[in-house]
């Protein structure tokens, strides 16, 4: 697709909505209305936006505890998201899960895990089921660079290759696992080569929203046609601390990215009426926050509900 035909309005909307959501969380956090850890995605928005715009509605999303961006970009229930952060009964999981475990089956967004790499084999299993059932849906599996430290990551991609499963692994390489840099964790940081050696098609993609969209779109088409596992790596920066709302101590204080986001400005420059979109986003956020604030906490007997399935 040519850049001219790309839906910049939608890209700007998703990107800015993620950014503003995270900023609003940052503002609210000191009031202690959100009493649980949040792993913010500020700085990593382009990946979620590009990949989500390239994927189709039937595709299945596996994310992790740093899932706000993915959830919003793929169109998860936004009001229920805020209610979940507030721990309210009309949240995604009645407030019992919180920010680290978002999920919305209406958009095939699987509930996320806060144990590093633990849902990667689940994503592979979901892809296995698509193949057995002869469906054309693709599984998108977002994960961090740190997840690739775990043996289960490599065992999972080996299996995905062995069975030629319809899955796209999306590595958001922000170079850090909490405060540990990649170089302290991997002897060789040549991620792409290592993944290729397991038989997956792997590609490093330049970090801008349009390129991520365009490349992902092509790859997803291939996966849908041939059922082959693919892997993409995108270099990115997490501007906030690993968890919580402070700026990342891994960034220099005068880093220009902390002052202005070039990608956001670029997307904005492609949108004539960006002010209108900004207004729309702000009003959506306001409404969702008001909804969450007004909602009730779950009743005490909810503690014991859904430990086992009632289906």
């Amino acid at each position: 697709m040519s850049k001219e035909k790309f839906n910049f309005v939608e890209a700007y909307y998703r990107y800015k909505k993620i950014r503003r959501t995270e900023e609003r969380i940052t503002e609210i956090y000191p009031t202690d209305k959100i009493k649980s850890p949040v792993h913010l995605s500020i700085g990593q928005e382009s990946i979620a936006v590009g990949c989500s715009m390239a994927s189709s509605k039937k595709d299945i999303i596996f994310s992790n505890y740093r899932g706000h961006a993915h959830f919003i970009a793929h169109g998860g229930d936004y009001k229920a998201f805020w209610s979940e952060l507030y721990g309210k009964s009309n949240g995604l999981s009645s407030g019992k899960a919180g920010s680290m475990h978002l999920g919305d089956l209406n958009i095939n967004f699987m509930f996320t895990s806060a144990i590093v790499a633990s849902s990667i084999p689940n994503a592979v299993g979901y892809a296995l089921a698509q193949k057995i059932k002869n469906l054309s849906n693709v599984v998108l599996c977002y994960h961090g660079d740190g997840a690739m430290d775990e043996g289960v990551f490599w065992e999972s991609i080996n299996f995905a290759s062995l069975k030629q499963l319809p899955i796209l692994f999306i590595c958001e390489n922000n170079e850090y696992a909490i405060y540990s840099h990649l170089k302290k964790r991997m002897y060789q940081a040549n991620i792409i080569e290592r993944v290729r050696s397991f038989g997956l098609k792997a590609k490093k993609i330049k970090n801008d929203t349009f390129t991520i969209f365009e490349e992902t779109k092509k790859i997803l088409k291939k996966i849908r046609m041939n059922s082959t596992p693919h892997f993409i790596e995108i270099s990115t920066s997490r501007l906030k601390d690993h968890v919580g709302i402070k700026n990342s101590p891994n960034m220099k204080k005068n880093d220009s990215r902390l002052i202005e986001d070039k990608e956001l400005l670029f997307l904005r420059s492609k949108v004539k009426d960006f002010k209108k979109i900004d207004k729309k986003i702000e009003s959506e956020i306001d409404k969702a926050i008001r909804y969450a604030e007004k909602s009730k906490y779950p009743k005490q007997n909810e503690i014991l509900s859904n430990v086992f399935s009632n289906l």
Partner: protein
Amino acid sequence: MSNSLNLSYGKAIYEGIYQSMLNNPNVFIFGQGIDDYKGHYGTTLNLHKKFGKERAFDTPISEDSLTGIAIGSSLAGMRPIFVHQRMDFLMLCMNQLVNMASKICYLSNGIQNVPIVIRASIGRSWGQGAQHSQSLYSFFAHVPGLKVIAPTTPYDVKGGIIASINDNNPVIFVEHRMLYENKGLVPQKKYEISLSSARVTKKGSDLTLIGVSYTVVDCLRASEILKDKKIDVEVIDLICISNLDIKTIIKSAKKTKKIIIVDNDWLYCGLASEIATQVSEKLKFKIPIERMGYKFSPCPTTRNLEDNFYPSANVIAKKAYEMITNKKDWTPKKIINKEILEFKGPF
């Protein structure tokens, strides 16, 4: 105590590790982020600067293999300490701990041993939710060949970490996030506590409260509340989960003739059940025994459910009152533990 300092639980752990590393060049420590600026609640702060990167280092997120690596190094004479930010992450180490570490001594006919220490924090409070708050120590205590301890006070945590490092067996060392700031007197010298003794923290005659790790704090607060009703309870800090000090418990039971075990975990197939069973096996007469612990569900994230997921001081006090008086006419004022109220994350 002379030559003692008023130290936090976190600092006491640090002292124990520092002195052990100074004393024995075979002791080394590793784990995710142990060399970062927070140094795992201060317990490992700057150890890499003092002892070098070879003896104190950060690791990849590879719990399973690193447990095996700790075991391997111990077979070669080292004494590794492997630190985990959360107890939950030990689930990735199960094979190495249960199938390897606990078996090597037995299978080698006692020729080999595995002197490793696995430190893990229980992460209760502030919306840690289902995967970052679990205790799970009874899984390990179930297995012959593993020792499991969970000290509560700064004194015991320092003596406990030193004893664990010196012990010739694998020790799972359980810490609690809400205890790191607790202060108490800690001798400056290097000392060990027994890995099979409980401690009577408060003497009393009307009922015995048995706590472990953070629930000891709840039991002590309950004993304060009960003073309003002129009830005098004894509080036992279990400390050792695998080598249960049943003698101390029986002695107390003979005196008070009533026991409440407040576990820091689910009750089903757990530590509290083990204690209750051993008490009823060893006592010649029958006494009432109650168990309290987590609600039998994953830990909910939202605060209004999280508060009731855990046994609290007022609920413990109410139960004790009812057991002693056979009356249900008193509901003690609800108190939320101040360290839990004050804790504002983000982790």
